[in-house]
C-alpha cells in the first residue's frame, strides 16, 4: 500500500470509469412494493407459514421454561452474528426492513415449508430407494436440496421485490446469511424443545436445552445455515448483478458457488467423519470432540466463504472509488483514508491510531469522519451531480469533522519522534480547512543542500501531507502548503524525503511533487 496522499480525485488503478455501470448505492428502496408480484408472493407465504409458525411456537411454549431459555440462548447467539453480517457490508448497508424480511423468510416461511417438505421427500426416498438409505443418508440428501432451495427462494424473492438493493456480491451474501440466520434460530429452538420433550419426566428443563445448545451452537454454530445460505446467496448475486460478464460465465461461476453452499450442507448433515465423536463405554462425546467434528466438516467451507466475502469487499471498494472519483476537493477523502475504509480491521486500526495520537476524542472523531465519507459516497451515488446541495452540505460536514480532528491536541508521541506540529485548520485555495504545519525542528535537522543546480520541486495545489517517517500506518504530522519549494534529499520507493528552507525535513509522497522548471 502506497503512503500516498493522493486525493480521491485521482482515478485509482483498476477503478471503473466514472459512472460506468455504477450502482445506485445511495438509493434505498422500501420493502413495501405492492406493484411487484413478488411482494404478494412474500405476503401470501408469510400469512400461511406465519399461521403454522405461531401454532408450532404455541405448542412448544407448553415447556415454558425450556422454550424461554431456548429463545434467550439462540438470540444471544444470533444478535452478534447478525451484527457481524450487517457490518461486513462495509459501504452501502442494506435497509433494515429488507434485512428483517430476510430473517423472517428464513425463520418463519422457510422453516415451516421445510418441515413438511423434508418429511415428504424423506419418505419418498425411503420408498424409491430403501428405508436404510433414507435413515442413514436422508438428512444429507433431502435436507440440503429442500432447505437450500427454500432459503434461496427467499433471497430471489427479495431480489424481485427490491432489485435495486442488490448491487453486488456482498448484498447476496448479506441477504443469504440473514435468511440462514433466521432459519437456524427457529430450527435450533425446535431442536432444543424436542430434546426436552423426549425426557418428559425431567424436572430441570434446562439440561437438555444446554446439551443441545452445546452440540448445535457451540460445536456447529459457525458452520450452519448462515454459511450455507451465505454461499448460495453470493452465487445468486453473482448471476444477478455481474451484468458485464457473459451469461454463461455468470451461470457457471454463480452456480458453482450455489453448489458449494448445497455441498457444505450435505457434508454437514452426512454421517461422514462421525468417528471423531467415538467414545468408549457409551459416554457422550466431549465438547472438544464436537468442536473438532465441526472444524473438520465445516471449516473448509467457512474458509471458502471468508475468501469470497473478501473478494466481494474488494469489489465494493472498487465501486466506492468509482463513485467518489472526480470529486473536486482532493482533501475530502485522501488515498490513505480511502485505503483505511477497505475493511473493518483497517477502519478500527485507523481509529485506534487516532486515539493513540489524540485520545478517545480523536478516535471518535475519526470514526465520524469515516462514516461521513461513506455517507458522502451514498449521496454522490444518489445525486449524480457533484454540485448537488446535499453533496455540498456533506462536504462541509466532512470538513468540520476534519477541522475538529485537527484541533485536538496530541496526547502522546513516540520517544525520539519529532516535536508535534500544531495543526491549525485554515481555509485553503479550495476552501478546504487544511491543517498547516508550522516549521518544526526535527530530532536531527538535515541541512538542505544549497549547491547550485540541485533539482527543486514545488508542492502541488492543495498541499501534501507530510510524515516524520515513511510509514503509512502513522498519522501525517503536517500539511505542506502549496507552492512550497522543496529539495528531495532521498527517495525510498514512492516516498521522498524532502527539505525546505529553514532546515526542516519530512517524508512525502514523491509522486505528487511538481518539478520546478
Amino acid at each position: 500500500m502506497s503512503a500516498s496522499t493522493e486525493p480521491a480525485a485521482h482515478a485509482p488503478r483498476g477503478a471503473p470509469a466514472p459512472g460506468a455501470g455504477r450502482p445506485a448505492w445511495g438509493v434505498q428502496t422500501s420493502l413495501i412494493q405492492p406493484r411487484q408480484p413478488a411482494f404478494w408472493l412474500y405476503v401470501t407465504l408469510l400469512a400461511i407459514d406465519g399461521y403454522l409458525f405461531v401454532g408450532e411456537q404455541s405448542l412448544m411454549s407448553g415447556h415454558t421454561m425450556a422454550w424461554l431459555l431456548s429463545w434467550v440462548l439462540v438470540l444471544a447467539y444470533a444478535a452478534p452474528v447478525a451484527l457481524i453480517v450487517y457490518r461486513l457490508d462495509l459501504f452501502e448497508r442494506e435497509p433494515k426492513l429488507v434485512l428483517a424480511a430476510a430473517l423472517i423468510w428464513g425463520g418463519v416461511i422457510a422453516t415451516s415449508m421445510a418441515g413438511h417438505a423434508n418429511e415428504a421427500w424423506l419418505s419418498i426416498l425411503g420408498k424409491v430407494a430403501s428405508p436404510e438409505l433414507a435413515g442413514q443418508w436422508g438428512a444429507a440428501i433431502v435436507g440440503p436440496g429442500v432447505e437450500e432451495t427454500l432459503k434461496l427462494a427467499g433471497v430471489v424473492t427479495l431480489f424481485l421485490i427490491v432489485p435495486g438493493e442488490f448491487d453486488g456480491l456482498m448484498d447476496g451474501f448479506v441477504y443469504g446469511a440473514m435468511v440462514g440466520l433466521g432459519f437456524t434460530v427457529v430450527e435450533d429452538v425446535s431442536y432444543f424443545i424436542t430434546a426436552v420433550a423426549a425426557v418428559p419426566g425431567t424436572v430441570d428443563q434446562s439440561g437438555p436445552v444446554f446439551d443441545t445448545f452445546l452440540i448445535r451452537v457451540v460445536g456447529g454454530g459457525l458452520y450452519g445455515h448462515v454459511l450455507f445460505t451465505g454461499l448460495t446467496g453470493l452465487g445468486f448475486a453473482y448471476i444477478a448483478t455481474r451484468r458485464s460478464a457473459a451469461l454463461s460465465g455468470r451461470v457457471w461461476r454463480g452456480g458453482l458457488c450455489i453448489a458449494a453452499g448445497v455441498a457444505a450442507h450435505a457434508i454437514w448433515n452426512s454421517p461422514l467423519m462421525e468417528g471423531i465423536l467415538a467414545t468408549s463405554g457409551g459416554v457422550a462425546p466431549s465438547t472438544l470432540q464436537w468442536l473438532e467434528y465441526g472444524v473438520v466438516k465445516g471449516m473448509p467451507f467457512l474458509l471458502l466463504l471468508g475468501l469470497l466475502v473478501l473478494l466481494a469487499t474488494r469489489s465494493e471498494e472498487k465501486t466506492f472509488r468509482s463513485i467518489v472519483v472526480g470529486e473536486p476537493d482532493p482533501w475530502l477523502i485522501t488515498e490513505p483514508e480511502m485505503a483505511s475504509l477497505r475493511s473493518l480491521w483497517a477502519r478500527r486500526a485507523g481509529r485506534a491510531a487516532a486515539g493513540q495520537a489524540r485520545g478517545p476524542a480523536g478516535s471518535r472523531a475519526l470514526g465520524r469522519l469515516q462514516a461521513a465519507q461513506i455517507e458522502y459516497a451514498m449521496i454522490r451515488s444518489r445525486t449524480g451531480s457533484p454540485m448537488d446541495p446535499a453533496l455540498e452540505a456533506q462536504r462541509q460536514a466532512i470538513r468540520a469533522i476534519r477541522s475538529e480532528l485537527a484541533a485536538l491536541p496530541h496526547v502522546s508521541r513516540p520517544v525520539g519522534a519529532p516535536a508535534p506540529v500544531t495543526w491549525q485548520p485554515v481555509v485553503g485555495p479550495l476552501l478546504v480547512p487544511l491543517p498547516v504545519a508550522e516549521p518544526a525542528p526535527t530530532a536531527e535537522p538535515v541541512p538542505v543542500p544549497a549547491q547550485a543546480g540541485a533539482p527543486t520541486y514545488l508542492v502541488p495545489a492543495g498541499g501534501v501531507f507530510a510524515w516524520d517517517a515513511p510509514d503509512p500506518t502513522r498519522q501525517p504530522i503536517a500539511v505542506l502548503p502549496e507552492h512550497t519549494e522543496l529539495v528531495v534529499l532521498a527517495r525510498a520507493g514512492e516516498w521522498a524525503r524532502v527539505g525546505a528552507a529553514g532546515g526542516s525535513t519530512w517524508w512525502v509522497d514523491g509522486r505528487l511533487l511538481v518539478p520546478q522548471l
Partner: protein
Amino acid sequence: MTDIPPGTSAPGEPVAAQAPVLAAAGGLRSERAHLLPTVALAAVIAAVVLGGMGLDRALAAPSAGTLDLGRSLTITAAPGWVLTPSAEGTTSAVQLRKADAILTAQAVDRSYSGDSASVIEEAKKELGDGTAQISFGDVHHSPIGGHDATYVSFQATITTSGRSGVVDGEVIAMVVGGEAVMFELAAPQGRLGSAGDDVQTMLESVRVGR
C-alpha cells in the same frame, strides 16, 4: 481535473428533460418483467413443498404386512414400515424400520406378575443395565386399543461400531388377550415425533390368535 463528473452532461449534450416520465415507464416495464420470474419462483416452491407431499401420497408405501410376534400374537405394519434385513426370518421378535425410526416388537415369553406396569419395570431395568447413559421420563398408564398398556420415554447415548449418538425412544408394554408384548421405539435425537402416529396405529393392530 479532466474527469467529467458523473451525471453531468458534457457541453452541448441535450438534457434529459423527460426523465421522470421515462423512469415511470421503466418502472412499469420492470414490474411486468418480474411477473414471469415470480411465477417461476412460486412454481419451484410449490414443486418442492406441495409436489413432495403429493408425490409422497401417490407413491405406495411398502409395508411388511401382518407379522407374527410369537405366542399367537400378530401385528400389522403401518405403510412405510418394513422389516429390517437383520430381523427378517425371525418369529420371536420383529424389527421394523421407517426412515431412521426403528420399532422392535417382541412377545414376552416368560411369566409376568400380571400387568403391563410390571413389564415396563423389567424393561427399564434391562435397558438401564445395558446402556451407560440413559434417563427415563415418567411412567404413563393408558389403555391402547382397549388393552392394558404402560409406556415410558427415554433418552440414551448409545455407541455402536465405535460411533456415539443420542437417541430418543419409548418403551411400551401391552397385555393383549392375556399375553404380554413389549415394544421399543427409537430414533436419533429429535426425529421420533413423526413416527408417533404410525406406532399408535400398529399398537392398535396387535391381535392374539385363537
